[in-house]
């Protein structure tokens, strides 16, 4: 059993309406000194595969095919037991 986590974040330069809205809302709530907020996705996968290299490559494949839109997003994969 392996657990893989994937962080999908917007590429630099891609507009992030959600991040901007969060920053604005935080400022309205009285928080100051916020230089920037970016929002991404965090995906946890429970996999039957135990070989971590195979997991890594399968998850990369999942990211390329579905989990990330590489026109606007990048991803980062971590595999643990």
């Amino acid at each position: 059993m392996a657990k893989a986590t994937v962080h999908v974040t917007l590429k630099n330069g891609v507009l992030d309406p959600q991040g901007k809205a969060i920053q604005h809302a935080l400022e309205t709530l009285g928080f100051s000194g916020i230089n920037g907020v970016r929002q991404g996705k965090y995906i946890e996968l429970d996999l039957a595969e135990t070989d971590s290299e195979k997991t890594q490559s399968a998850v990369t494949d999942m990211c390329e095919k579905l989990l990330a839109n590489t026109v606007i997003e990048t991803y980062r994969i971590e595999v643990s037991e």
Partner: protein
Amino acid sequence: MKSAVIVFPGSNCDRDIAVTLEKVTGQAPAMVWHRDSTLPEGLGLIAVPGGFSYGDYLRSGAMAANSPIIADVKKKAEAGVLTLGICNGFQVLTECGLLPGALIRNRDLKFVCRDVNLSVERTDTAFTGKYTGGQVIRIPVAHHDGNYFADNETLDRLESNGHVAFRYCNDNGKVADEANPNGSARNIAGVFNETRTVLGLMPHPERLADERLGGQDGVPMFESLLEQLS
């Protein structure tokens, strides 16, 4: 005109586009289930409808773009069969690479359903031939993720090659920020592919193609297609 409407789990404007296609072209489209692997032969038009395919979960259009039928949609579209993606259909076409850019969350994060004005950017295409140059049309939008994004290089290329189909504008045709319902880059509401045989747009031309519903500005798009194909 023989046409097909692709139906994904969660499509919900499939009937709306079918009604309009039948009304304008006189022929009911084939409804094609996403799990089929091939489209019917002899199609003039493939329509990818609006809705929430797969609930818009993960990213709008992402899961639908991986449906079995999409391989054949791509093949036929690349071979020149006219392909129209409306709203969620536009999102699907960008996700599967038939159109450039991406549709991200609306600028103010809210779903927006209302009529908007569009300027028709060019009338020498299969989709827009029945509009007049510089015409301003009124068409509804209804979406959460309609904010068109592409990098500047892509946007410049789209503009210089005349691949922008529609822009959000004021009553008088002025392309202005206050007329932009979702924050789309350069007010872009719809784009063509390189050969102008694939069109994706966020507004719903099929929703104002019936006087009972308050307008007919969507009709010329379908009449253009009909003329082109008959």
